[in-house]
Protein backbone atom coordinates (compact mmCIF):
# COMPACT_ATOMS: atom_id res chain seq x y z
CA UNK A 1 0.00 0.00 0.00
CA UNK A 2 1.41 3.41 -1.01
CA UNK A 3 -0.08 6.65 0.30
CA UNK A 4 0.31 10.00 -1.44
CA UNK A 5 -0.99 13.31 -0.19
CA UNK A 6 -2.32 15.95 -2.58
CA UNK A 7 -4.78 18.76 -2.32
CA UNK A 8 -8.43 17.72 -2.47
CA UNK A 9 -10.35 20.14 -4.68
CA UNK A 10 -13.56 18.25 -5.37
CA UNK A 11 -14.92 15.96 -2.69
CA UNK A 12 -16.06 12.39 -3.06
CA UNK A 13 -14.41 8.99 -2.96
CA UNK A 14 -13.31 7.29 -6.17
CA UNK A 15 -11.96 3.78 -6.55
CA UNK A 16 -10.67 2.05 -9.65
CA UNK A 17 -7.64 1.34 -11.81
CA UNK A 18 -5.19 4.18 -12.36
CA UNK A 19 -4.91 5.43 -15.91
CA UNK A 20 -2.46 8.00 -17.23
CA UNK A 21 -3.81 10.50 -19.69
CA UNK A 22 -1.89 10.03 -22.90
CA UNK A 23 -1.62 13.29 -24.70
CA UNK A 24 -1.34 12.85 -28.42
CA UNK A 25 2.24 13.90 -28.95
CA UNK A 26 2.28 15.63 -32.26
CA UNK A 27 5.90 16.11 -33.15
CA UNK A 28 6.06 19.13 -35.35
CA UNK A 29 7.43 18.45 -38.81
CA UNK A 30 9.38 21.34 -40.30
CA UNK A 31 10.15 21.68 -43.98
CA UNK A 32 10.13 24.14 -46.88
CA UNK A 33 7.11 24.11 -49.14
CA UNK A 34 7.06 24.94 -52.82
CA UNK A 35 3.32 25.20 -53.34
CA UNK A 36 2.57 27.79 -50.67
CA UNK A 37 -0.98 28.14 -51.95
CA UNK A 38 -1.73 24.47 -51.31
CA UNK A 39 -0.13 24.76 -47.87
CA UNK A 40 -2.33 27.74 -47.06
CA UNK A 41 -5.36 25.67 -47.99
CA UNK A 42 -4.18 22.87 -45.71
CA UNK A 43 -4.17 25.40 -42.88
CA UNK A 44 -7.62 26.73 -43.86
CA UNK A 45 -8.99 23.18 -43.84
CA UNK A 46 -7.63 22.54 -40.35
CA UNK A 47 -9.02 25.90 -39.24
CA UNK A 48 -12.53 25.01 -40.47
CA UNK A 49 -12.26 21.66 -38.66
CA UNK A 50 -11.19 23.38 -35.45
CA UNK A 51 -14.06 25.87 -35.59
CA UNK A 52 -16.50 22.99 -35.99
CA UNK A 53 -14.96 21.00 -33.12
CA UNK A 54 -14.98 24.02 -30.84
CA UNK A 55 -18.61 24.74 -31.63
CA UNK A 56 -19.55 21.19 -30.66
CA UNK A 57 -17.43 21.40 -27.52
CA UNK A 58 -19.08 24.66 -26.51
CA UNK A 59 -22.49 22.97 -26.70
CA UNK A 60 -21.24 19.95 -24.79
CA UNK A 61 -19.72 22.15 -22.10
CA UNK A 62 -22.94 24.17 -21.87
CA UNK A 63 -24.95 21.04 -21.25
CA UNK A 64 -22.49 19.59 -18.73
CA UNK A 65 -21.17 22.59 -16.86
CA UNK A 66 -23.05 25.72 -17.86
CA UNK A 67 -22.48 28.92 -19.82
CA UNK A 68 -19.22 29.78 -18.11
CA UNK A 69 -17.55 26.62 -19.36
CA UNK A 70 -19.02 27.12 -22.84
CA UNK A 71 -17.59 30.62 -23.03
CA UNK A 72 -14.10 29.18 -22.91
CA UNK A 73 -14.63 27.34 -26.16
CA UNK A 74 -16.30 30.30 -27.74
CA UNK A 75 -13.18 32.31 -26.92
CA UNK A 76 -11.06 29.58 -28.48
CA UNK A 77 -13.25 29.72 -31.54
CA UNK A 78 -12.69 33.45 -31.85
CA UNK A 79 -8.96 32.97 -31.47
CA UNK A 80 -8.69 30.30 -34.11
CA UNK A 81 -10.43 32.48 -36.68
CA UNK A 82 -8.74 35.66 -35.55
CA UNK A 83 -7.41 37.77 -38.37
CA UNK A 84 -4.23 38.55 -36.50
CA UNK A 85 -3.42 34.92 -35.77
CA UNK A 86 -4.34 33.92 -39.30
CA UNK A 87 -2.24 36.67 -40.89
CA UNK A 88 0.82 35.70 -38.84
CA UNK A 89 0.45 32.13 -40.08
CA UNK A 90 -0.19 33.22 -43.65
CA UNK A 91 2.93 35.35 -43.58
CA UNK A 92 5.05 32.42 -42.46
CA UNK A 93 3.62 30.13 -45.12
CA UNK A 94 3.68 32.53 -48.08
CA UNK A 95 6.79 34.52 -47.38
CA UNK A 96 8.98 32.14 -45.42
CA UNK A 97 7.70 29.06 -47.27
CA UNK A 98 7.13 27.25 -43.98
CA UNK A 99 4.87 24.21 -43.78
CA UNK A 100 1.56 24.74 -41.97
CA UNK A 101 2.60 22.86 -38.80
CA UNK A 102 5.77 24.89 -38.30
CA UNK A 103 3.94 28.13 -39.08
CA UNK A 104 1.26 27.32 -36.47
CA UNK A 105 3.82 26.31 -33.84
CA UNK A 106 5.85 29.50 -34.29
CA UNK A 107 2.79 31.73 -34.34
CA UNK A 108 1.49 30.03 -31.22
CA UNK A 109 4.76 30.79 -29.46
CA UNK A 110 4.72 34.39 -30.66
CA UNK A 111 1.26 35.15 -29.23
CA UNK A 112 1.74 33.07 -26.08
CA UNK A 113 4.86 35.12 -25.33
CA UNK A 114 2.96 38.33 -25.93
CA UNK A 115 0.29 37.34 -23.40
CA UNK A 116 2.79 36.00 -20.89
CA UNK A 117 4.61 39.34 -20.94
CA UNK A 118 1.49 41.30 -19.96
CA UNK A 119 1.18 42.66 -16.42
CA UNK A 120 -2.28 41.24 -15.84
CA UNK A 121 -2.80 37.71 -14.57
CA UNK A 122 -6.01 37.30 -16.56
CA UNK A 123 -4.21 38.11 -19.82
CA UNK A 124 -1.20 35.96 -18.86
CA UNK A 125 -3.54 33.00 -18.52
CA UNK A 126 -4.67 33.54 -22.14
CA UNK A 127 -1.25 32.21 -23.24
CA UNK A 128 -2.54 28.73 -22.33
CA UNK A 129 -5.56 29.32 -24.58
CA UNK A 130 -3.40 30.23 -27.57
CA UNK A 131 -1.33 27.08 -27.04
CA UNK A 132 -4.45 24.97 -26.61
CA UNK A 133 -5.96 26.32 -29.83
CA UNK A 134 -2.73 25.74 -31.73
CA UNK A 135 -2.42 22.19 -30.39
CA UNK A 136 -5.90 21.53 -31.74
CA UNK A 137 -4.91 22.68 -35.22
CA UNK A 138 -1.78 20.53 -35.11
CA UNK A 139 -3.76 17.47 -34.05
CA UNK A 140 -6.16 17.97 -36.91
CA UNK A 141 -3.30 18.27 -39.39
CA UNK A 142 -1.76 15.09 -37.98
CA UNK A 143 -5.10 13.31 -38.25
CA UNK A 144 -5.02 12.54 -34.54
CA UNK A 145 -8.04 12.14 -32.31
CA UNK A 146 -7.74 14.16 -29.12
CA UNK A 147 -8.23 12.94 -25.62
CA UNK A 148 -9.62 9.41 -25.77
CA UNK A 149 -9.53 7.02 -22.86
CA UNK A 150 -8.56 3.65 -24.28
CA UNK A 151 -10.08 1.60 -21.51
CA UNK A 152 -13.27 -0.43 -21.36
CA UNK A 153 -13.79 0.10 -17.65
CA UNK A 154 -14.05 3.42 -15.80
CA UNK A 155 -10.73 4.70 -14.48
CA UNK A 156 -9.09 7.18 -12.14
CA UNK A 157 -7.48 9.59 -14.56
CA UNK A 158 -3.97 10.86 -13.80
CA UNK A 159 -2.21 13.64 -15.72
CA UNK A 160 0.42 16.35 -15.33
CA UNK A 161 -2.32 18.85 -15.73
CA UNK A 162 -5.34 18.95 -17.98
CA UNK A 163 -6.16 21.77 -20.33
CA UNK A 164 -9.78 22.89 -19.99
CA UNK A 165 -10.60 21.63 -23.46
CA UNK A 166 -9.12 18.25 -22.59
CA UNK A 167 -11.21 17.98 -19.45
CA UNK A 168 -14.45 18.72 -21.25
CA UNK A 169 -13.72 16.37 -24.15
CA UNK A 170 -13.24 13.38 -21.88
CA UNK A 171 -15.93 10.75 -21.76
CA UNK A 172 -17.26 11.35 -18.22
CA UNK A 173 -18.82 7.91 -17.92
CA UNK A 174 -15.26 6.53 -17.95
CA UNK A 175 -13.95 8.76 -15.18
CA UNK A 176 -14.12 7.93 -11.48
CA UNK A 177 -11.83 10.75 -10.42
CA UNK A 178 -9.00 13.11 -11.41
CA UNK A 179 -5.48 13.21 -10.04
CA UNK A 180 -3.11 15.85 -11.39
CA UNK A 181 0.54 16.58 -10.62
CA UNK A 182 0.12 20.34 -10.93
CA UNK A 183 -2.89 22.63 -10.78
CA UNK A 184 -4.72 24.45 -8.02
CA UNK A 185 -8.18 24.63 -6.50
CA UNK A 186 -9.10 27.37 -8.96
CA UNK A 187 -7.84 25.54 -12.05
CA UNK A 188 -10.38 24.66 -14.71
CA UNK A 189 -10.08 20.96 -13.94
CA UNK A 190 -10.97 21.59 -10.31
CA UNK A 191 -13.92 23.80 -11.19
CA UNK A 192 -15.30 21.41 -13.78
CA UNK A 193 -14.78 18.43 -11.47
CA UNK A 194 -16.78 20.18 -8.76
CA UNK A 195 -19.52 21.18 -11.17
CA UNK A 196 -19.81 17.61 -12.41
CA UNK A 197 -19.43 16.05 -8.95
CA UNK A 198 -16.33 14.01 -9.78
CA UNK A 199 -13.72 13.67 -7.00
CA UNK A 200 -10.45 15.44 -7.82
CA UNK A 201 -7.04 15.84 -6.24
CA UNK A 202 -4.39 18.24 -7.54
CA UNK A 203 -0.78 18.98 -6.72
CA UNK A 204 0.49 15.45 -6.06
CA UNK A 205 3.74 16.38 -7.80
CA UNK A 206 5.91 13.56 -9.12
CA UNK A 207 4.84 11.11 -6.41
CA UNK A 208 2.56 9.36 -8.88
CA UNK A 209 4.85 7.11 -10.89
CA UNK A 210 4.09 5.74 -14.37
CA UNK A 211 4.57 2.18 -13.13
CA UNK A 212 1.43 2.55 -10.99
CA UNK A 213 -0.65 2.49 -14.17
CA UNK A 214 -3.38 -0.13 -14.03
CA UNK A 215 -3.07 -0.70 -10.29
CA UNK A 216 -6.01 -0.37 -7.93
CA UNK A 217 -6.21 3.13 -6.46
CA UNK A 218 -8.60 4.84 -4.09
CA UNK A 219 -8.85 8.61 -3.68
CA UNK A 220 -10.66 10.81 -1.20
CA UNK A 221 -11.34 14.23 -2.68
CA UNK A 222 -12.26 15.69 0.70
CA UNK A 223 -8.89 14.99 2.31
CA UNK A 224 -6.64 14.87 -0.77
CA UNK A 225 -5.42 11.36 0.00
CA UNK A 226 -4.43 8.97 -2.79
CA UNK A 227 -3.81 5.32 -1.87
CA UNK A 228 -2.30 2.87 -4.34
CA UNK A 229 -3.01 -0.84 -3.72
CA UNK A 230 -5.07 -0.09 -0.61
CA UNK A 231 -5.27 -2.80 2.07
CA UNK A 232 -8.70 -4.16 2.96
CA UNK A 233 -9.11 -1.92 5.97
CA UNK A 234 -8.40 1.34 4.12
CA UNK A 235 -10.54 0.20 1.26
CA UNK A 236 -13.48 -0.67 3.45
CA UNK A 237 -13.17 2.55 5.40
CA UNK A 238 -13.20 4.73 2.30
CA UNK A 239 -15.91 2.71 0.58
CA UNK A 240 -18.07 3.19 3.62
CA UNK A 241 -17.38 6.88 3.48
CA UNK A 242 -18.41 6.89 -0.17
CA UNK A 243 -21.66 5.09 0.63
CA UNK A 244 -22.33 7.64 3.34
CA UNK A 245 -21.65 10.56 0.97
CA UNK A 246 -23.82 9.16 -1.78
CA UNK A 247 -26.62 8.56 0.67
CA UNK A 248 -26.32 12.13 1.98
CA UNK A 249 -26.15 13.50 -1.56
CA UNK A 250 -29.35 11.68 -2.51
CA UNK A 251 -31.01 12.88 0.66
CA UNK A 252 -29.99 16.48 0.01
CA UNK A 253 -31.35 16.34 -3.53
CA UNK A 254 -34.75 15.37 -2.14
CA UNK A 255 -34.65 18.44 0.11
CA UNK A 256 -34.75 20.91 -2.78
CA UNK A 257 -38.01 22.81 -2.67
CA UNK A 258 -38.70 21.71 0.92
CA UNK A 259 -39.21 24.23 3.76
CA UNK A 260 -36.59 24.87 6.45
CA UNK A 261 -38.79 23.68 9.26
CA UNK A 262 -38.06 21.77 12.47
CA UNK A 263 -39.96 18.66 13.54
CA UNK A 264 -42.04 20.80 15.87
CA UNK A 265 -42.89 23.31 13.15
CA UNK A 266 -40.43 26.15 13.76
CA UNK A 267 -39.19 27.68 10.56
CA UNK A 268 -36.06 29.66 9.85
CA UNK A 269 -34.99 31.33 6.62
CA UNK A 270 -31.87 29.97 4.92
CA UNK A 271 -30.23 32.53 2.61
CA UNK A 272 -26.90 32.74 0.81
CA UNK A 273 -23.74 34.83 0.99
CA UNK A 274 -22.44 35.91 -2.40
CA UNK A 275 -19.56 38.02 -3.67
CA UNK A 276 -20.57 38.82 -7.25
CA UNK A 277 -23.58 38.63 -9.59
CA UNK A 278 -22.21 35.38 -11.09
CA UNK A 279 -22.76 33.60 -7.77
CA UNK A 280 -26.55 33.87 -8.13
CA UNK A 281 -26.51 30.71 -10.26
CA UNK A 282 -25.14 28.69 -7.33
CA UNK A 283 -27.83 30.17 -5.07
CA UNK A 284 -30.57 29.01 -7.44
CA UNK A 285 -29.07 25.55 -7.94
CA UNK A 286 -28.85 25.03 -4.18
CA UNK A 287 -32.32 26.41 -3.56
CA UNK A 288 -31.29 29.37 -1.38
CA UNK A 289 -34.30 31.37 -0.17
CA UNK A 290 -32.69 34.75 -0.82
CA UNK A 291 -29.40 36.60 -0.51
CA UNK A 292 -28.50 37.30 3.10
CA UNK A 293 -25.22 39.00 2.32
CA UNK A 294 -24.10 40.39 -1.02
CA UNK A 295 -20.62 41.76 -0.48
CA UNK A 296 -20.36 44.88 -2.62
CA UNK A 297 -16.55 45.01 -2.37
CA UNK A 298 -15.97 43.13 -5.62
CA UNK A 299 -17.04 46.25 -7.51
CA UNK A 300 -14.30 48.23 -5.82
CA UNK A 301 -11.64 45.52 -5.80
CA UNK A 302 -11.82 44.75 -9.53
CA UNK A 303 -11.36 48.31 -10.67
CA UNK A 304 -8.49 50.75 -10.74
CA UNK A 305 -10.65 53.70 -9.82
CA UNK A 306 -13.90 54.26 -7.94
CA UNK A 307 -16.68 52.35 -9.71
CA UNK A 308 -19.28 54.71 -11.15
CA UNK A 309 -22.90 54.87 -10.09
CA UNK A 310 -23.97 53.21 -13.34
CA UNK A 311 -21.51 50.34 -12.99
CA UNK A 312 -22.77 49.63 -9.49
CA UNK A 313 -26.40 50.06 -10.49
CA UNK A 314 -26.03 47.45 -13.26
CA UNK A 315 -24.48 44.88 -10.89
CA UNK A 316 -27.11 45.38 -8.15
CA UNK A 317 -29.95 45.41 -10.64
CA UNK A 318 -28.75 42.17 -12.20
CA UNK A 319 -28.74 40.35 -8.86
CA UNK A 320 -32.14 41.74 -7.87
CA UNK A 321 -33.67 40.82 -11.22
CA UNK A 322 -32.08 37.35 -11.24
CA UNK A 323 -33.39 36.65 -7.74
CA UNK A 324 -36.86 37.36 -9.05
CA UNK A 325 -38.53 39.07 -6.12
CA UNK A 326 -36.72 37.18 -3.38
CA UNK A 327 -35.03 39.20 -0.65
CA UNK A 328 -31.53 40.51 -1.47
CA UNK A 329 -29.50 42.09 1.34
CA UNK A 330 -26.63 44.17 -0.01
CA UNK A 331 -23.95 45.25 2.39
CA UNK A 332 -22.49 48.67 1.74
CA UNK A 333 -18.77 49.02 1.18
CA UNK A 334 -16.75 47.05 3.73
CA UNK A 335 -13.10 47.72 3.03
CA UNK A 336 -10.19 48.48 5.29
CA UNK A 337 -8.72 45.94 7.72
CA UNK A 338 -7.78 42.89 5.60
CA UNK A 339 -9.24 44.35 2.39
CA UNK A 340 -7.17 47.26 1.10
CA UNK A 341 -7.70 49.16 -2.14
CA UNK A 342 -4.95 51.33 -3.62
CA UNK A 343 -6.99 54.19 -5.05
CA UNK A 344 -8.73 54.86 -1.74
CA UNK A 345 -5.32 56.09 -0.54
CA UNK A 346 -6.02 55.04 3.01
CA UNK A 347 -3.20 56.00 5.35
CA UNK A 348 -1.13 53.15 6.72
CA UNK A 349 -2.44 51.91 10.06
CA UNK A 350 -0.68 50.01 12.80
CA UNK A 351 -3.85 48.11 13.57
CA UNK A 352 -6.24 48.22 10.63
CA UNK A 353 -8.82 45.90 12.22
CA UNK A 354 -9.37 48.65 14.76
CA UNK A 355 -8.99 51.43 12.25
CA UNK A 356 -10.64 53.28 9.42
CA UNK A 357 -12.87 50.66 7.83
CA UNK A 358 -16.34 49.96 6.45
CA UNK A 359 -19.04 52.44 7.58
CA UNK A 360 -16.35 54.62 9.14
CA UNK A 361 -14.90 55.26 5.68
CA UNK A 362 -18.37 55.87 4.25
CA UNK A 363 -19.26 58.46 6.87
CA UNK A 364 -15.89 60.17 6.47
CA UNK A 365 -16.13 60.20 2.67
CA UNK A 366 -19.80 60.90 2.05
CA UNK A 367 -19.25 61.28 -1.71
CA UNK A 368 -18.19 57.62 -2.00
CA UNK A 369 -21.13 56.49 0.13
CA UNK A 370 -23.55 58.73 -1.76
CA UNK A 371 -22.65 57.14 -5.11
CA UNK A 372 -23.23 53.67 -3.72
CA UNK A 373 -26.53 54.58 -2.08
CA UNK A 374 -27.81 56.17 -5.29
CA UNK A 375 -26.93 53.02 -7.23
CA UNK A 376 -28.63 50.88 -4.58
CA UNK A 377 -31.87 52.86 -4.49
CA UNK A 378 -32.05 53.03 -8.27
CA UNK A 379 -31.64 49.23 -8.37
CA UNK A 380 -34.34 48.82 -5.70
CA UNK A 381 -36.98 49.37 -8.40
CA UNK A 382 -36.05 45.93 -9.80
CA UNK A 383 -36.55 43.63 -6.82
CA UNK A 384 -36.74 43.25 -3.05
CA UNK A 385 -33.73 45.15 -1.78
CA UNK A 386 -32.44 45.49 1.78
CA UNK A 387 -29.46 47.69 2.60
CA UNK A 388 -27.09 46.75 5.39
CA UNK A 389 -24.35 48.85 7.04
CA UNK A 390 -21.25 47.11 8.41
CA UNK A 391 -19.12 47.93 11.50
CA UNK A 392 -21.59 49.91 13.60
CA UNK A 393 -20.58 50.89 17.14
CA UNK A 394 -23.03 53.61 18.06
CA UNK A 395 -26.49 54.96 17.35
CA UNK A 396 -25.37 58.24 15.77
CA UNK A 397 -23.55 56.36 13.01
CA UNK A 398 -26.76 54.65 12.00
CA UNK A 399 -28.72 57.88 12.10
CA UNK A 400 -26.15 59.62 9.93
CA UNK A 401 -26.15 56.77 7.41
CA UNK A 402 -29.95 56.77 7.33
CA UNK A 403 -29.95 60.52 6.76
CA UNK A 404 -27.84 59.92 3.66
CA UNK A 405 -30.39 57.36 2.50
CA UNK A 406 -33.16 59.93 2.92
CA UNK A 407 -31.14 62.52 0.97
CA UNK A 408 -30.66 60.06 -1.87
CA UNK A 409 -34.35 59.18 -1.99
CA UNK A 410 -35.26 62.88 -2.09
CA UNK A 411 -32.81 63.45 -4.93
CA UNK A 412 -34.13 60.54 -6.95
CA UNK A 413 -37.69 61.68 -6.43
CA UNK A 414 -36.79 65.19 -7.62
CA UNK A 415 -35.09 63.71 -10.68
CA UNK A 416 -38.07 61.50 -11.41
CA UNK A 417 -36.02 58.29 -11.08
CA UNK A 418 -38.03 55.37 -9.70
CA UNK A 419 -36.99 53.45 -6.57
CA UNK A 420 -38.64 50.88 -4.34
CA UNK A 421 -40.58 52.31 -1.40
CA UNK A 422 -40.19 49.16 0.72
CA UNK A 423 -36.40 49.10 1.04
CA UNK A 424 -35.58 47.89 4.55
CA UNK A 425 -32.42 49.16 6.20
CA UNK A 426 -30.43 47.06 8.66
CA UNK A 427 -27.06 46.83 10.31
CA UNK A 428 -24.45 44.22 10.96
CA UNK A 429 -23.80 43.39 14.56
CA UNK A 430 -20.10 42.68 14.71
CA UNK A 431 -18.75 44.78 17.56
CA UNK A 432 -19.33 44.24 21.28
CA UNK A 433 -20.51 47.87 21.39
CA UNK A 434 -23.34 47.10 18.96
CA UNK A 435 -24.33 44.09 21.05
CA UNK A 436 -24.47 46.15 24.25
CA UNK A 437 -26.55 48.82 22.47
CA UNK A 438 -28.70 46.39 20.51
CA UNK A 439 -31.85 47.50 22.38
CA UNK A 440 -31.32 51.08 21.19
CA UNK A 441 -30.08 50.16 17.73
CA UNK A 442 -33.14 47.98 17.20
CA UNK A 443 -35.29 51.10 17.33
CA UNK A 444 -33.37 52.61 14.41
CA UNK A 445 -33.42 49.78 11.88
CA UNK A 446 -35.52 47.03 10.29
CA UNK A 447 -33.17 44.10 10.92
CA UNK A 448 -29.88 42.89 12.41
CA UNK A 449 -27.41 40.49 10.88
CA UNK A 450 -24.63 39.19 13.08
CA UNK A 451 -21.18 38.98 11.50
CA UNK A 452 -19.76 36.26 13.68
CA UNK A 453 -16.20 36.36 12.35
CA UNK A 454 -15.58 39.94 13.39
CA UNK A 455 -17.73 39.70 16.50
CA UNK A 456 -15.58 36.79 17.67
CA UNK A 457 -12.38 38.65 16.87
CA UNK A 458 -13.43 41.80 18.73
CA UNK A 459 -15.00 40.00 21.67
CA UNK A 460 -12.20 37.53 22.30
CA UNK A 461 -9.38 39.97 21.43
CA UNK A 462 -8.18 37.45 18.86
CA UNK A 463 -6.86 38.57 15.48
CA UNK A 464 -8.65 36.44 12.86
CA UNK A 465 -5.62 36.59 10.56
CA UNK A 466 -3.40 35.06 13.23
CA UNK A 467 -3.32 31.30 12.73
CA UNK A 468 -1.29 30.66 15.87
CA UNK A 469 -4.08 31.57 18.27
CA UNK A 470 -5.60 28.12 17.90
CA UNK A 471 -7.93 27.28 20.75
CA UNK A 472 -8.06 30.88 21.96
CA UNK A 473 -9.94 31.90 18.82
CA UNK A 474 -13.08 29.96 19.63
CA UNK A 475 -16.23 30.87 17.71
CA UNK A 476 -18.21 28.60 20.09
CA UNK A 477 -17.03 30.71 23.04
CA UNK A 478 -19.90 31.14 25.51
CA UNK A 479 -19.36 34.91 25.46
CA UNK A 480 -20.13 34.99 21.73
CA UNK A 481 -23.17 32.72 22.11
CA UNK A 482 -24.52 34.82 24.99
CA UNK A 483 -24.10 37.91 22.81
CA UNK A 484 -26.15 36.25 20.08
CA UNK A 485 -28.88 35.60 22.62
CA UNK A 486 -28.81 39.18 23.84
CA UNK A 487 -29.00 40.56 20.30
CA UNK A 488 -31.85 38.22 19.36
CA UNK A 489 -33.85 39.12 22.50
CA UNK A 490 -33.42 42.85 21.91
CA UNK A 491 -34.36 42.49 18.25
CA UNK A 492 -37.52 40.56 19.03
CA UNK A 493 -38.54 42.89 21.86
CA UNK A 494 -38.51 45.66 19.28
CA UNK A 495 -40.27 43.68 16.61
CA UNK A 496 -37.39 43.31 14.16
CA UNK A 497 -35.73 40.16 12.84
CA UNK A 498 -32.19 38.93 13.33
CA UNK A 499 -29.92 36.84 11.13
CA UNK A 500 -26.39 35.49 11.08
CA UNK A 501 -24.22 35.99 8.02
CA UNK A 502 -20.85 34.86 9.34
CA UNK A 503 -19.22 31.49 8.75
CA UNK A 504 -20.73 30.27 12.00
CA UNK A 505 -24.17 30.13 10.36
CA UNK A 506 -23.14 27.01 8.43
CA UNK A 507 -21.70 25.28 11.51
CA UNK A 508 -24.12 22.39 11.91
CA UNK A 509 -23.03 21.73 15.48
CA UNK A 510 -24.65 25.06 16.37
CA UNK A 511 -27.88 24.79 14.38
CA UNK A 512 -29.82 23.66 17.46
CA UNK A 513 -28.33 26.57 19.42
CA UNK A 514 -29.40 29.12 16.79
CA UNK A 515 -32.89 27.68 16.81
CA UNK A 516 -32.98 27.86 20.62
CA UNK A 517 -31.83 31.48 20.61
CA UNK A 518 -34.51 32.33 18.06
CA UNK A 519 -32.38 33.42 15.11
CA UNK A 520 -34.73 34.18 12.20
CA UNK A 521 -32.36 33.84 9.28
CA UNK A 522 -29.06 32.09 8.51
CA UNK A 523 -27.03 33.20 5.52
CA UNK A 524 -24.46 30.68 4.35
CA UNK A 525 -22.45 29.80 1.26
CA UNK A 526 -24.70 28.27 -1.43
CA UNK A 527 -23.21 24.79 -0.99
CA UNK A 528 -24.13 24.82 2.70
CA UNK A 529 -27.86 25.44 2.15
CA UNK A 530 -29.07 21.86 1.77
CA UNK A 531 -26.94 20.35 4.57
CA UNK A 532 -28.23 23.12 6.84
CA UNK A 533 -31.83 22.49 5.75
CA UNK A 534 -31.30 18.84 6.62
CA UNK A 535 -29.99 19.72 10.09
CA UNK A 536 -32.95 22.03 10.72
CA UNK A 537 -35.44 19.39 9.66
CA UNK A 538 -33.85 16.83 12.00
CA UNK A 539 -34.21 19.11 15.03
CA UNK A 540 -37.04 19.06 17.54
CA UNK A 541 -36.64 22.28 19.51
CA UNK A 542 -39.00 21.03 22.24
CA UNK A 543 -36.21 18.63 23.17
CA UNK A 544 -33.13 20.71 22.41
CA UNK A 545 -33.96 24.33 23.24
CA UNK A 546 -34.65 24.09 27.01
CA UNK A 547 -31.36 22.27 27.58
CA UNK A 548 -29.36 24.71 25.44
CA UNK A 549 -30.91 27.84 26.94
CA UNK A 550 -30.37 26.54 30.47
CA UNK A 551 -26.71 25.81 29.73
CA UNK A 552 -26.24 29.24 28.20
CA UNK A 553 -27.71 31.00 31.25
CA UNK A 554 -25.98 28.76 33.79
CA UNK A 555 -23.80 30.69 36.24
CA UNK A 556 -21.59 27.68 36.75
CA UNK A 557 -19.54 25.99 34.12
CA UNK A 558 -17.99 22.58 33.72
CA UNK A 559 -15.08 23.62 31.57
Amino acid at each position, binding site marked *: MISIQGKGVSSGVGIGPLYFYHRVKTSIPRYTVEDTDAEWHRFKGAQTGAIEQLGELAEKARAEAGDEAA*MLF*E*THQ*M*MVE*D*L*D*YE*EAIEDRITNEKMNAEAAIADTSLQ*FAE*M*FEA*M*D*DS*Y*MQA*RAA*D*VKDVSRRLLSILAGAVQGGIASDVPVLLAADDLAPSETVQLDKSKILGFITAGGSGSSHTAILARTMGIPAIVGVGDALKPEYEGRQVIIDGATGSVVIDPDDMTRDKLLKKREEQLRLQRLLETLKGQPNITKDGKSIRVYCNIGSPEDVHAVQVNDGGGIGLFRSEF*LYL*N*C*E*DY*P*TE*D*QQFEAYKQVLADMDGKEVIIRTLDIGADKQIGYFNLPHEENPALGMRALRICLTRPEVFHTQLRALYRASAFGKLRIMFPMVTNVWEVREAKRQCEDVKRELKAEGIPYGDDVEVGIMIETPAAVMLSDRLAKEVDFFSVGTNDLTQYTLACDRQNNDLGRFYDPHHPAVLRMLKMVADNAHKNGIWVGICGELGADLTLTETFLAIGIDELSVSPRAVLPLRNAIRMTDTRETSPRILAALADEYTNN
Partner: protein
Amino acid sequence: MKEFTYTIQEAVGIHARPAGLLVKEVKKYQSTVTITKGDKSVNALKLMALMGMGVKCGDTVTVQVEGADEDVAAPALEAFFKTNL
Protein backbone atom coordinates in the same frame (compact mmCIF):
# COMPACT_ATOMS: atom_id res chain seq x y z
CA MET B 1 -13.18 60.08 -40.68
CA LYS B 2 -15.26 59.88 -37.52
CA GLU B 3 -13.78 59.68 -34.07
CA PHE B 4 -14.93 59.27 -30.47
CA THR B 5 -13.28 58.63 -27.13
CA TYR B 6 -14.58 56.29 -24.49
CA THR B 7 -13.60 55.40 -20.92
CA ILE B 8 -13.86 51.67 -20.20
CA GLN B 9 -16.45 50.85 -17.52
CA GLU B 10 -16.27 47.05 -17.73
CA ALA B 11 -14.51 45.89 -14.56
CA VAL B 12 -12.12 43.48 -16.28
CA GLY B 13 -11.33 45.79 -19.20
CA ILE B 14 -11.29 44.62 -22.83
CA HIS B 15 -10.79 40.94 -22.02
CA ALA B 16 -11.41 37.99 -24.31
CA ARG B 17 -15.18 37.99 -24.59
CA PRO B 18 -15.87 41.69 -25.11
CA ALA B 19 -12.91 41.80 -27.51
CA GLY B 20 -14.46 38.97 -29.51
CA LEU B 21 -17.84 40.70 -29.57
CA LEU B 22 -16.20 43.92 -30.68
CA VAL B 23 -14.46 42.17 -33.59
CA LYS B 24 -17.79 40.68 -34.64
CA GLU B 25 -19.43 44.10 -34.47
CA VAL B 26 -16.68 45.76 -36.51
CA LYS B 27 -16.96 43.05 -39.18
CA LYS B 28 -20.46 44.29 -39.95
CA TYR B 29 -19.07 47.46 -41.51
CA GLN B 30 -16.77 48.25 -44.40
CA SER B 31 -15.00 51.02 -42.52
CA THR B 32 -11.57 50.54 -41.02
CA VAL B 33 -11.79 50.87 -37.26
CA THR B 34 -8.71 51.79 -35.27
CA ILE B 35 -8.50 51.75 -31.50
CA THR B 36 -5.85 53.82 -29.79
CA LYS B 37 -4.71 53.77 -26.20
CA GLY B 38 -1.76 56.04 -25.42
CA ASP B 39 0.79 55.52 -28.17
CA LYS B 40 -0.55 52.10 -29.24
CA SER B 41 -3.03 51.67 -32.07
CA VAL B 42 -4.61 48.49 -33.39
CA ASN B 43 -7.00 47.50 -36.12
CA ALA B 44 -10.20 46.50 -34.32
CA LEU B 45 -10.58 43.43 -36.53
CA LYS B 46 -7.61 41.83 -34.82
CA LEU B 47 -8.60 40.02 -31.65
CA MET B 48 -5.15 39.09 -30.34
CA ALA B 49 -3.76 42.56 -30.94
CA LEU B 50 -6.79 44.07 -29.23
CA MET B 51 -6.33 41.85 -26.20
CA GLY B 52 -2.60 42.53 -26.33
CA MET B 53 -3.21 46.24 -25.71
CA GLY B 54 -4.25 45.34 -22.18
CA VAL B 55 -7.04 47.92 -21.93
CA LYS B 56 -8.29 48.08 -18.37
CA CYS B 57 -11.23 49.50 -16.52
CA GLY B 58 -10.83 53.27 -16.31
CA ASP B 59 -8.60 53.50 -19.41
CA THR B 60 -9.66 55.94 -22.09
CA VAL B 61 -9.45 54.82 -25.70
CA THR B 62 -9.91 56.68 -28.95
CA VAL B 63 -11.89 54.98 -31.67
CA GLN B 64 -11.43 56.09 -35.27
CA VAL B 65 -13.80 54.98 -38.00
CA GLU B 66 -12.89 55.59 -41.61
CA GLY B 67 -14.65 54.37 -44.74
CA ALA B 68 -17.75 54.55 -46.89
CA ASP B 69 -20.16 53.68 -44.08
CA GLU B 70 -18.46 55.64 -41.30
CA ASP B 71 -21.55 57.77 -40.67
CA VAL B 72 -23.52 54.66 -39.72
CA ALA B 73 -20.66 52.70 -38.19
CA ALA B 74 -19.37 55.32 -35.75
CA PRO B 75 -22.61 55.85 -33.78
CA ALA B 76 -23.32 52.11 -33.83
CA LEU B 77 -19.88 51.37 -32.40
CA GLU B 78 -20.23 54.08 -29.80
CA ALA B 79 -23.48 52.47 -28.69
CA PHE B 80 -21.72 49.08 -28.65
CA PHE B 81 -19.00 50.42 -26.34
CA LYS B 82 -21.58 51.87 -23.99
CA THR B 83 -23.49 48.63 -23.73
CA ASN B 84 -20.60 46.16 -23.57
CA LEU B 85 -17.54 47.95 -22.31
